[in-house]
């Protein structure tokens, strides 16, 4: 039994503008001590997934419609509020993207740290304080004794994120959910924080779900990666497998969208065309179909399930030997993955059925076609 | 003059003159204090002595972390601020202190693309109005011509020309950024200052915009000052890259050189901090973890501004020179300038090699996977090459 098991989780938001289909039935496991990367762009449902695990979806709009989440065999969704509260912070902790807004600006670091400890342990405030000092030292904050009395705004961004980490690890939780922990930080600070995170979780044996949009970050941090798109997991594999053989068109597209700092000069990026889907529509067919260069007729109508890339005798859900799975009717061939485009002779992406979908109106830049008739500049201007 | 004619061309008699020449540019923002009457107690030295030149048709990347002054440099160049000191020369004209109509006329020739596609478009104007506004302001063409031009511009940036009647909030981030680009193109500018044009966009959209900017440059002979915090993106798009730290340029080189042979300890650290989407590379890389945070630009350290965090200085036993003497930008090899007293020590160091993941014994062969057009360089850069 894995530490965390998520089964067919469906989360929706009811808003004035209608229902938002945030997470549409995802299943994954996290093993104790493992680091799982959750990769995707904004709105793909990666943060919502984790808020749902913590039962912290914004009320009353967000609702878990379906699914099961167990931590150490305890069904988190069925748990009464008081017990899930007990588990938060103690068994599962979270750190968030923006350390400025994630710390309460009107409370001192001490108050915020101590309350966390006191909430779960029958510790005195003095003990809790001692522990807080220790934790701040552990995350590399100089002069923890005095810094404890500071307010969040008196710290730099990197230091704040260190405080957040110290707070999250205060009770040595089994699972740490790190939601874009470095996105708001500069790259040199990001390096510091990632290093710290890696180091500490390894030391404490904490399992981590690392949410990020940056494939580079997970490449160095995670043992296994789930790629999410539009509320679905579209590809999952151990990290080396995923990068060795990216197999979902979306994963391929992502890898072709960012220049690598170690890349040779030249080379054009191959962007994913179009825009992310409107989540106010119930997903029909493959959610990536409108932007996919490999789509076939079936993609429009039928959402492919997550299946092993190659036939396997036994599906391994977690760990370094987990099965590489994708949800795709027509996965790119390895060569195509390398070029980022379908290269099969004569292949044309299947046109959308019926009316043209709005998003498709965005075309590739039509530079060539429009170079002819630009109005001349005003002659009067030129004479001046 | 059509845009086509302008493309890649130089004006007669202007052949070798740089389009933009920045000399010792300084932009200080005063800090005032006082109970009743505010008085000047210091300056935030956002830009503190920046010099570079930009050739016609070239792309110069300006890279650095937040607060390093890169955006201020860009904004000062298009004269959104009046510089505290130094000189900005555009196409041979000193525009440092230009004002009024003269400045307005000059602004036709340099345009800006902004970071946040949401806040940089007036939500109360439709797209045609936004894109056509520069034409309006500079009274270019008849109303009909302007309308036509707007339609074409929308096509150029890959938007449906019929979208002119729509409003910004009806578009996604990437589409909005295209609108921003179209606006910048409206008056046939020669220079475009792109201030973090992709950092607010989703990963999958970033490539669309990068490609758009590159194609436009090819076709229209544009000159870019490309400002970003992401060295990989800057390197990808720029011919040359300048690295800024605390209001100064610490290293300026051809992008290829900079990446493969960084000579400033800061550049090395910066490169090493960038995660590479390749677990194989990542696993062998050793990052240089800089200590602490960037000091305040209101009170920059003495001597070399980087000395408080410099790994090299530590290695060299904290030479006093770093804290005393302000290193000037010096050309170490052709077109590769660096502002470090001990830049020679960087060259060939393991840190330099490791920074881009090329350290260690194995070469590219060990790389598990890489996109074709985006592959790591075949061999580790030869030191000093």
């Amino acid at each position, binding site marked *: 039994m894995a530490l965390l098991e998520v089964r067919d989780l*469906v989360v929706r938001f009811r808003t*004035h503008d209608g229902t938002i*289909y945030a997470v*549409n*039935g995802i299943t994954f496991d996290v093993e104790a001590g493992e680091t799982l990367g959750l990769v995707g762009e904004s709105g793909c449902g990666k943060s919502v997934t984790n808020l749902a695990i913590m039962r912290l979806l914004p009320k009353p709009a967000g609702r878990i419609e379906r699914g099961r989440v167990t931590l150490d065999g305890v069904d988190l969704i069925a748990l009464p509020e008081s017990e899930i509260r007990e588990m938060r912070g103690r068994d599962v902790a979270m750190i968030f993207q923006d350390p400025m807004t994630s710390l309460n600006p009107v409370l001192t670091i001490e108050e915020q740290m101590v309350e966390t400890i006191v909430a779960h342990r029958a510790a005195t405030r003095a003990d809790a304080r001692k522990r807080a000092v220790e934790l701040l030292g552990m995350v590399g904050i100089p002069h923890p004794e005095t810094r404890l009395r500071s307010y969040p705004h008196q710290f730099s961004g990197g230091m704040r994120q260190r405080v957040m980490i110290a707070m999250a690890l205060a009770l040595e939780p089994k699972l740490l959910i790190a939601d874009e922990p470095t996105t708001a930080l500069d790259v040199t600070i990001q390096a510091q924080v990632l290093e710290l995170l890696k180091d500490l979780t390894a030391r404490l044996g904490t399992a981590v779900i690392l949410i990020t949009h940056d494939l580079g970050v997970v490449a160095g941090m995670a043992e296994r990666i789930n790629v999410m798109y539009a*509320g*679905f997991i579209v590809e999952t594999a151990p990290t080396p497998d995923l990068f060795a053989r990216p197999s979902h068109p979306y994963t391929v597209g992502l890898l072709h969208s960012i220049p690598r700092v170690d890349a040779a000069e030249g080379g054009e990026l191959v962007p994913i065309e179009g825009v992310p889907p*409107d989540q106010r*529509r*119930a*997903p*029909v*067919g493959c959610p990536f179909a409108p932007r996919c260069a490999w789509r076939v007729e079936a993609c*429009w109508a*039928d*959402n*492919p*399930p*997550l299946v092993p890339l190659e036939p396997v005798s036994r599906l391994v859900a977690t760990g370094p030997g987990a099965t590489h799975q994708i*949800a795709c009717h027509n996965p790119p061939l390895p060569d195509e993955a390398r070029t980022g485009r379908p290269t099969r002779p004569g292949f044309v992406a299947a046109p959308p*059925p*019926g*009316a*043209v*979908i*709005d*998003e498709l109106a965005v075309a590739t830049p039509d530079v060539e076609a429009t170079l002819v008739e630009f109005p001349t500049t005003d002659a009067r201007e030129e004479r001046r | 003059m059509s845009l086509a004619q302008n493309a890649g061309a130089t004006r007669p008699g202007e052949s070798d003159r740089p389009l933009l020449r920045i000399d010792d540019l300084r932009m200080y923002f005063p800090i005032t204090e006082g109970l009743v009457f505010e008085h000047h107690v210091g300056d935030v030295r956002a830009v503190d002595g920046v010099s570079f030149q930009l050739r016609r048709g070239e792309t110069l990347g300006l890279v650095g972390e937040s607060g390093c002054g890169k955006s201020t440099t860009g*904004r000062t160049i*298009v004269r*959104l601020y009046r510089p505290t000191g130094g000189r900005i020369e555009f196409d041979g004209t000193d525009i440092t202190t230009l004002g009024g109509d003269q*400045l*307005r*006329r000059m*602004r*036709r020739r340099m*345009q*800006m693309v*902004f*970071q*946040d596609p949401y*806040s*940089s*478009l*007036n*939500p*109360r*104007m*439709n797209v045609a109005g936004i894109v056509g*506004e*520069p034409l309006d*302001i*500079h009274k270019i063409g008849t109303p009909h011509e302007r309308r036509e031009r707007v339609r074409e511009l929308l096509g150029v940036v890959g938007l449906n020309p019929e*979208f002119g*009647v*729509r*409003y910004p*909030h*009806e578009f996604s981030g990437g589409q909005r950024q295209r609108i921003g680009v179209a*606006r910048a193109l409206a*008056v046939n500018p020669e220079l475009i200052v792109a201030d973090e044009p992709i950092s607010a966009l989703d990963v999958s959209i970033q490539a669309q915009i990068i490609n758009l900017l590159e194609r436009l440059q090819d076709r229209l002979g544009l000159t870019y000052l490309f400002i970003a915090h992401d060295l990989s993106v800057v390197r990808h798009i720029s011919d040359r890259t300048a690295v800024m730290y605390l209001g100064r340029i610490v290293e300026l080189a051809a992008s290829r050189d900079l990446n493969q042979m960084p000579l400033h300890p800061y550049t090395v650290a910066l490169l090493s901090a960038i995660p590479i989407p390749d677990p194989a590379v990542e696993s062998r890389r050793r990052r240089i973890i800089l200590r602490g945070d960037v000091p305040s630009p209101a009170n920059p350290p003495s001597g070399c501004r980087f000395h408080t965090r410099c790994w090299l200085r530590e290695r060299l036993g904290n030479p006093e020179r770093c804290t005393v003497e302000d290193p000037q930008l010096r050309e170490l090899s052709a077109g590769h300038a660096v502002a470090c007293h001990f830049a020679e020590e960087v060259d060939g160091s393991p840190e330099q090699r490791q920074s881009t993941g090329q350290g260690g014994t194995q070469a590219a062969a060990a790389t598990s996977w890489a996109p074709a057009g985006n592959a790591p360089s075949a061999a580790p850069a030869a030191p000093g090459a």
Partner: protein
Amino acid sequence: MTATATPARRAAPARASRGLWRDALVRLTRNGPALLGMFFIVVFVLAAVLAPVISPYDPIAGSLANRLQAPGTAGHVLGTDLQGRDELTRILYGARISLQVGVISVLMGLAIGGTLGAIAGAFGGAVDNVIMRIVDVLLAIPGILLAIGIVAWLDRGLPQIMLAVGMTNAPIFARILRGSLLALRESDFVVAARSIGATPLRLLLRHMLPNALTSLIVAATLALATAIIDVAGLGFLGLGPPDPRTAEWGTMLTDSTKYLREAPYLIFFPGVAIVISAIGFNLLGDGLRESLDPRLRR
């Protein structure tokens, strides 16, 4: 794996493009409370405009013989007042005064406060400082006292009342507009327009004002509610229109307090009229706030 079974993917609805204003209007028409508010307002505007059509009676001339007919008396749905005039007619004509005074006073406030705020927000610096100190001075004087002072100073009369109520709003408008403008001055799209070479006037008129207007529109709508209440308050303090025959709600109510025990309905009806119209504008104002700034919606 299809998470949800929905019959078929629907193509994006082809819809006409619309600006934020039209968007806001659409949102407004979906906002129940705002619609109720608009309904009240429409009723009162119609009452004001159509008063002579609706009622056959003279709002001014009465007959003591016919005084204090109870509500429901034949021909007088709301009864008659102390002078024997039809109360419904007076209420209808009162809507004229209230709306007229309310609207004009708010417009005056907008003209004065808007100009001050626009100048302060557009120029900033010393100009801003001086104007805002003036605004602070005006704001420091409690509203009704300012209005009372102005009426005491300029004598009683509808124009004076309008000015007085307008002046209490002016500093508020000035502050709101100035605040929005200052924020907008640094916003990216204004900087963008500046970098294109837009003149300060163009920046103000095309970029800053249209965006600053939303908060001002909301404030003005809410100010209409307070204006109606303030005008009635001045009437209550005996500073209403000088002609005692004027059908002004506040004055009608106040004059009737003497006859509270004989004819409580003479207080009730104008009171209800004031409250309902104030509720109307408050609801509309809240609705506008929500629809003009969708982020506020919950």
